[in-house]
Structure formats: C-alpha cells, structure tokens
C-alpha cells in the first residue's frame, strides 16, 4: 500500500533555500546522502516525499535509494512530530504489564500508526524502548508528562486533557 502523508506538506521557500544550500555543499561527494538527510530533517523536522524528491534530484541519487536509507535508519522520520509527542514504552517491564494493549488503544483512538502524526498535527505516536521508569510500568509519556500504572481504560481521558 502506498504510504501517503497524514497531513499536507507545509514547506516554506526559506526552508527550500536552506536545503538547496546543503545539497550544493555536498553535491558530488561520496556518501553525501546521509549527511544531507540529517540536515534536511533539521530543516523540516521530518522527511516527506517532497523533501526526499528534492534531495534525489539535487544529489542525482535515485528516490528509491533515498527512501531505502530513510526507512533503514530509525532516526529518520517520514512524518512530522505532533504538538504533543506520545511515547509508549515497550520495554520488557512495561510490555509484560500490558503496554502493548495500551499502544493498540491509542492507535485506535487517534487512528494513526506508530511513527505517524494526526491530520490536525496535534499528536504523534512513537513506541519507545525502556524509559527507565519500570517501577511505574506500564508507562506512557506525552511530551514531558509521565503517566504510570496505566490501564487502557484510562487512555481516553488522558488524551482528552490535551
């Protein structure tokens, strides 16, 4: 299934000019793809098809190869971060305490998958490794707020606070 963006691309002329500068700096260099992708993610916050296409065109590297690199490394994101970034801990302790079900519940409520952002730009969802709060398992973080000892029935009310 084709991956389509959950919200429209809002890149500005300034961002594009910056990216073009980065591409010009690296053009013709061997191994330019990854440093340019890093800079591009700094500029745009994520790497949607519009940005990857500019990089492919600019560096003369196939788009399929760029996309291959972006999806290989976890630090690259195809989707923007939301105003509120939700992290569901899937570390061992949280997982055995049912964080998997909590993750499913959040996906269901927000209608997004892990790594995606809601169409209004409000929430993005990540599954994280151990966040170091095993005593509170299962744990969900929303920006700097930490919610522990959760069950999935509480999720709706927590999300409603934001």
């Amino acid at each position, binding site marked *: *299934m*084709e*991956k*389509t963006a959950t919200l429209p691309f809002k890149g500005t002329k300034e961002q594009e000019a910056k990216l073009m500068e980065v591409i010009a700096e690296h053009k013709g260099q061997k191994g330019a793809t990854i440093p340019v992708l890093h800079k591009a993610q700094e500029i745009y916050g994520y790497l949607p*098809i519009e940005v*990857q*296409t500019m990089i*492919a*065109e600019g560096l003369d590297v*196939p*788009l*399929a*190869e*760029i*996309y*291959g690199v972006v*999806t*290989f490394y976890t630090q690259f994101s195809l989707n923007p971060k939301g105003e509120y970034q939700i992290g569901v801990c899937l570390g061992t302790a949280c997982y055995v305490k049912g964080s998997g079900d909590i993750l499913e519940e959040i996906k269901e409520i927000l209608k997004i998958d892990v790594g995606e952002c809601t169409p209004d730009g409000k929430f993005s969802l990540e599954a994280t490794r151990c966040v170091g709060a095993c005593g509170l398992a299962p744990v969900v973080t929303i920006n700097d707020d930490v919610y522990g000892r959760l069950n999935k029935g509480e999720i709706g009310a927590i999300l409603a606070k934001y």
Partner: protein
Amino acid sequence: MVNLKINGMDVSVPEGYTVLQAAREAGIDIPTLCYLKDVSQTGSCRMCVVEIKGARALQAACVYPVAEGIEVLTHSPRVKKARKATLELILSNHDRKCLTCTRNQKCELQTLCDELGVNDIPYLGVRNEYDIDDLSTSIVRDNNKCVLCRRCVSACKNVQTVSVIDTMERGFITKVGCAFDKSLSSTACVNCGQCIVACPVGALREKESTDVVWDAIADEDKYVIVQTAPAVRAALGEEFGYEIGTPVTGKMVAALKRLGFDKAFDTDTGADFTIMEEGTELLDRLQNGGKLPLITSCSPGWIKFCEHNFPDFLDNLSSCKSPHQMFGAILKSYYAKKEGIDPKKMFVVSVMPCVAKKFESSREEMEADGIRDVDAVITTRELAKMIKQSGIKFTELPDEEFDNPFEEATGAGVIFGTTGGVTEAALRTVYELVENKTLDKVEFEAVRGTEGIKEATVTLGGKDVRVAIAHGLGNARKLLDSIRSGEKNYEFIEVMACPGGCVTGGGQPICSAKTHMDIDVKATRAKALYSEDERLTIRKSHENPDVKKIYDEFLEKPGSHIAHELLHTHYKARPKY
C-alpha cells in the same frame, strides 16, 4: 596464472578469477543465489560460502579472488551445514506455494533445496505477508516469494539505471519495493522486465494475458490473428528442452496453427515496414536539415525511459511505431479490407520477447479511427505455457510456414531481434536507395556483437553518417549524456532497452544464474537470428514483395499521409519521480 588447490586438486586459473569461477572451471558447482553474472555480485546471500585454509570465517566464493597457494574446500561438512542452515532460514520466510508458482520447476530456490538436500523446514516462525503489486500493465511483484537476493534491484539500478526499486526498511521486515511503497505503475518504471529475468524465484512475473487470448480464440465471432517477433523463434525452443540458440521457427508456426489462431503471421513484415518508414525519415532529416541524430523507436522500454529521463530528446525519436504496432495497424486496415473482415471483429495477438510491449500496446495513441492496433500481447514464456496447456508435443511438430500473404519476410526483419540488427537492416535499405546500387555484401560486421556501445561510420551519397548503437538502458544513458554534453555527435542511433536486444528481452525464457556462468546467452541467441537471416533469399526490407505491393496498392509511398496515420506515433514527456 594463479595456482590454488580446490578440494585437494591442483587448479590453475587466470588472475582476477573468483573462487566461484575457478571451481566452475575445475568442474565443481558451488551453489549461488544472489550472484548473477554481469548483474549482481555482492556476496550477501552466503549460499556460496567456502572454507579457505587459514581464513577465520567462511568466505563467499562469488566475490573471493583467487590467490597463489590458497586451499579451498567447497563441500566440507562445515560448509554444507552453513549453507543448509542459511537456506532453511530463507525458506522459513518464503511463501512455499510452489505447485501454483509461475516458476515451478524453473526456480533456483527449488533447485537449491534439491541440491542441498533440504527435506524439512525446521524454523516455523512468523512469516511476512505482503500485498501483491499487480497494477502495472507489464510486471507483477509478489514479495511473499522474494528471497531478498537483490538481483532485481541491481538489474534495475546498476544495469538499466532506471532505479525505481530498492531495498527498504531493515531486519526482518526488509523488502524490495518502490519509494513510499508506490506501485511500479506509478513510478518511472519502463517495463523492460529485466527484473523478471534476473529473479531466481517467482517474486516477479509478467502480467499474464493468456486468458484473454484463449477467450478470443474460443469466440467464434472473432477473427484471431497472431504475429510473432523475430526474437521469439530464437528462444522459444528452450522452454521445450532445446539448446540455447536453436531457432524453432517452423515448429513455432506449426504450434500457433494448432492453438487455433485463424492466421499466423511474422512480425518481420512489420519490421520491413519500419525500415521503409524509418529509412525514409532518416534520409529526409539528413537531406532537409531535420533533427539529428535520429533515434530508433522500436523498443518500448527505451521509449518510456526517454520520456521520463531525456525529454529533451523526444524530437530525436523516430516517429515510427514499433514493428508489431505497425503490422497490427496494417492488418486491421489493408488486410481486413482485402479479406472482407470487419476490423472490429479482428483480434490481433502479438507474441513478443518483451513485457514493455504490453504497456506499449495499451498506450492510447496506438490506434487508428478508434480501432486498436493490437489487442493482446503475450511473452515468449506465455506462448510456451499455451502450447503446454494444449497438449501439443512441440518437439514432434513438423516445420510449417507462416500464412499467406506476408510469408516473404526478410532477413533484415529477422535480425531486428538482436542489438545492431535494426541498424544493419536500415543500412541495407538506405544504402541501396541512396547509392542506387546493390550491396556486394549485406553484412555490416561493425554493428554486430555484444559490446555495450558500438560506433560505425557509413558513407551515404558522399556524406559520412555517424552511427551509434546502445543496448541496455545504462549504455543508452551514457550515450545520450555524451551527446547532451556535446562530447559526441551522431546522425543515427539505435537503442534497445534490454542488454543484448530483444533476444534477451524481459519476456524471454529465463536462464538460471548457472546457465549465465557457462553460456553467453545474448550472443548465442543472436547467432540463431543471424543464421536465419543467412538462410533467407530476401534479406533487404525494400525487396520484400508484400511490402512493395502494399505501398503500391494502399500506402502510396513511405512517409505518405496515410502511412503517417497508420504507422507513426508521438511521444510525451513523463515525470521522473
């Protein structure tokens, strides 16, 4: 020469050989999966691992260069155990519906299971499940069968420089696909099908059209005509056990008649029309200052590649339709009228060595007065399937001739199927038309052979005409880049999308990696066409009596208004991404 020991035997091979090549020369077959000569050499699948005395780990034979004095064990217990474990792991994530797989009995993975003695699959974990991408007119990708050897990626990216597929994601969910999981049909895929012939398993196949052909044959209301491209006869035999390079023209025609087609014609007649039209176009451009170089347009993979990647060269392309489209247009106009057949009831099937022809025949331009030139395109492989499905004992068939009229196709048309053939055919005609004298020798050796880019200069009417021939889109890109930069200049260019030309097209019988190690398939199949050419009495397109007659009775002359309506087309720029 380098001296080494393989399994205790002394072996001497040239420097630069890999252990795989050295072993092969010594009569030892090391199993491979991701290795494909001239396409992919990465050492990543670990199927060809061998023990090298003194080396810490097992080494991949396909990339390990021979060195003086090394001692290699190709089938030690340690090696066999490692290979088998790797293969079992690959199988654990493979959709093992072998009985209904298009590559059943022609699958390299199946062969490996046999050769490595795999009779059980001990790893039964999660298996990835993928949607099948069948939206393209030409190519179907079924990642459930994919073994991640990346041979298709290398064919698409390194050989063809089309680069629309690559590996994505990582670990267990690694897969091959297009950027953003798009369907091949919404990318700059040119449908050359070199990915299909590179695939060791059934992960890639053509979009089959045999059902519509069977339906047409069964429909009593339809007059079904089949035409076969020159390259088909050079390879069809392989599907029935003939050695590579055995021409099977007579048996192929006999089989077509038994399948129930109303008429079986030779696309070579279409090729002869192409030469008349394209030759005239070349002379016109040379004499009247038209856009040069003129670039051939017979290869639909090349045409789409040009539309996506070199839109600035669209005016250089010959406006000629490809031979089977031309022939389809003539069948549904001239022939239909002559025979009193309603062209709407006529159903033209093209048997092609090509999967891009499926896309080509579906292009909206490929019709005249709302009547499609060609109704269905099947590959050489699909024709073989139809023959098998009909219980025809191919090897026992008599040799039969193509139907009347159009049975007088020329040697010029036959050699269209190999790289350099269109150029040679064009030169045979253009030379005689311009110089007004008969060629002493019809063979133009300079344009033959499998070198990636060939060049020649021919004097026509006192002018030097510089000719270049590229086969494989990577070579075509190189050639066009050199023209763009002003480094090179030519008057005439032939491009074939597939390396080797149509004989090794994406619709031809698939040769295993092993076969490619032992035989130069391109050259061997080409030889079959050149021998057909030699056998024929008429070897120049302008001497084809049917072609002459149709110009006299119907098309007036090459390049006429009606010829343009029926036999020519136009192109459009397409996006690169």
